[in-house]
């Protein structure tokens, strides 16, 4: 793969949380296992998985926000900057990241982003402060001019600038945070469950906005969600996570039309669509506890095709065709 293709490339990321109160009792929760990913220029990459599968942890690591108890044990993240250089953001210190990379190159929309605004500050002041932090002085009137287009795009009236966060609904606050994340024109946006706490009408507005914005700026988005409907609507490519590993990756048409991994297959067939009242079945069992995961393939206790080797050894990543990967013993040539 040439360096032109990717904007962000993660290689063999491995990390998790160190928990425990005393030195002796320290335990490691292995939340991200050997994950490699490419985010290409002008694409929306979806990361799907159930709660506790490590998708939010992966998002934090990709953003470079590795703070204790989260630790990154191995791996590199190469960022193709707007100046055309390639930097490994795991090697940068916090100050460098904050001044040069965050907001300018990569923005992060955290989960429950509606609650991140300072309740004591008007929206206008929050925006001015963000600019100031990145070395841009802007006056109160200029703010209105600057954000008008963005606000128009997300469907917010400009009066919002003078409001305190509590005066806005959840969906409006979420849009304010998204506007903030886009203000400095980042090339990469990492959005962690951007629409979980809002109703379906607002959800569609926010997602459509993200998609149109991505399309007009030719930027790249990583979208993390448990909701397969969101992925169907948004994704160019999709990675399915289970218990810390990516079990399947491919163009979203391919994954939706012909899922390969047993987990993806069962997940897809458990989804409800309109016009079909026929009986559906969920996946038996429940997702594993990452503190104490099963041996071998982490899905084997719930998998109807589990073989001996699945219980003993972790499955390899198998390339089925170009840019189509599955991590499952069923597809291994032996």
């Amino acid at each position: 793969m040439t360096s032109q293709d990717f904007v962000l490339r993660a290689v063999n990321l491995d990390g998790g949380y160190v928990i425990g109160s005393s030195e002796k009792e320290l335990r490691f929760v292995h939340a991200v296992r050997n994950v490699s990913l490419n985010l290409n220029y002008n694409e929306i990459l979806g990361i799907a998985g159930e709660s506790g599968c490590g998708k939010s942890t992966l998002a934090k690591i990709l953003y470079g926000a590795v703070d204790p108890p989260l630790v990154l044990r191995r791996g590199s993240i190469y960022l193709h900057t707007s100046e055309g250089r390639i930097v490994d953001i795991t090697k940068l210190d916090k100050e460098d990241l904050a001044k040069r990379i965050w907001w300018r190159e990569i923005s992060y929309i955290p989960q429950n982003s509606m609650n991140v605004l300072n309740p004591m500050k008007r929206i206008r002041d929050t925006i001015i402060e963000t600019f100031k932090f990145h070395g841009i002085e802007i006056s109160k009137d200029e703010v209105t001019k600057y954000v008008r287009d963005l606000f128009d795009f997300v469907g917010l009236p400009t009066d919002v600038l003078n409001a305190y966060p509590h005066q806005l609904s959840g969906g409006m606050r979420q849009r304010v945070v998204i506007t903030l994340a886009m203000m400095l024109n980042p090339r990469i946006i990492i959005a962690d469950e951007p629409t979980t706490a809002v109703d379906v009408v607002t959800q569609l507005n926010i997602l459509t906005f993200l998609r149109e914005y991505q399309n007009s700026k030719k930027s790249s988005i990583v979208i993390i969600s448990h909701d397969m409907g969101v992925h169907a609507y948004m994704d160019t490519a999709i990675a399915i996570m289970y218990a810390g590993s990516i079990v399947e990756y491919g163009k979203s048409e391919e994954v939706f039309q012909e899922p390969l991994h047993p987990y993806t297959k069962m997940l897809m067939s458990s989804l409800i669509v309109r016009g079909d009242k026929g009986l559906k079945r969920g996946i038996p069992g429940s997702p594993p506890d990452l503190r104490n995961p099963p041996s071998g393939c982490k899905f084997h206790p719930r998998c109807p095709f589990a073989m001996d080797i699945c219980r003993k050894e972790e499955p390899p990543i198998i390339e089925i065709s170009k840019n189509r990967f599955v991590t499952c013993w069923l597809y291994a040539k032996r």
Partner: protein
Amino acid sequence: MNNTDTLLHINNVTKLFGYGLLGLRKFRALNNVSLTMPIEPEILVIVGETGSGKSTLLKIILRMLVPDYGTVLYKGKNIFKMKSSEVRWYRQEVQAVFQDPFETFNPLRPVVDYLNDTLKYLLKVRNASERKTLIDQTLRFVGLSLEKVDGKRSNEFSGGELQRISIARALLSRPKLLLADEPVSMLDASLRVDILNILKDVKENLKTSIIYVTHDILTAYYVGDRIAVLYRGDLVELGPITKVYNEPLHPYTQLLLSSVLEPSLDIRKKVKPLKRSTIELKEFLLQGCKFAMRCPYATKKCYETPPPEIKINGRAVRCWLYAT
């Protein structure tokens, strides 16, 4: 109202909540809502976004809130004018399952105690071995057993298992009406559909009616027989679920249904969003139709006069578009 042909009759219920500094100004969290459930078992879905009044309605049916106007009759009896013996009977007949299974159970108490308590105090089952049999029976109905549950606390179960236990507890008294408030919204997609299948089973095999409250249009379609759509305290549309989904009448129902992101690739071509947001309280205080500020068909009349309930082929809709 004849007490043999209706299970639940909600009659023009209005609930006021205060707002502002002292809460002296009031808005209508529920506005003149009427609903009837037949005695034959059915699953009625109540759909609405946050602030639609769906939880308020549920709390009124559970006798946790008293409406400011209107009455609620259960099998012909006004539930707010019951003697204490009737209240006990009502508690047996009407049971509830809540949204967050981890908050339902005290983490310091074995979960089986909750089932035991229900039998002991609500149903007065004195014999311990009889209680065990009943608990085991009910747990088996939801796909568990006493053996799997006995002695364990809530942190030893997954969300899906806890929700099953929660349903089992509610079913112990053989209720005629089960209220389920977003029972699957906290669960993972792979476990969701199994809980919904249990609800279907409860209706089919135990002949228990269910009110399923949700904001999730797709799960609503999967389990529901009839649907009631709430918007800012108004019941805007009511009818058989397939009819409403195939041909929504109220502009809000149309917007809601067209916004659903189905997990299939066709979705990309289908949807076109509406870009307008409004301040919630302003909508609640509208004199006329609460949806007027967002409605593409709104006229002056919509802002000024509340729309009447219009009946069309066994369905009901509150919208001036259909008034003749």
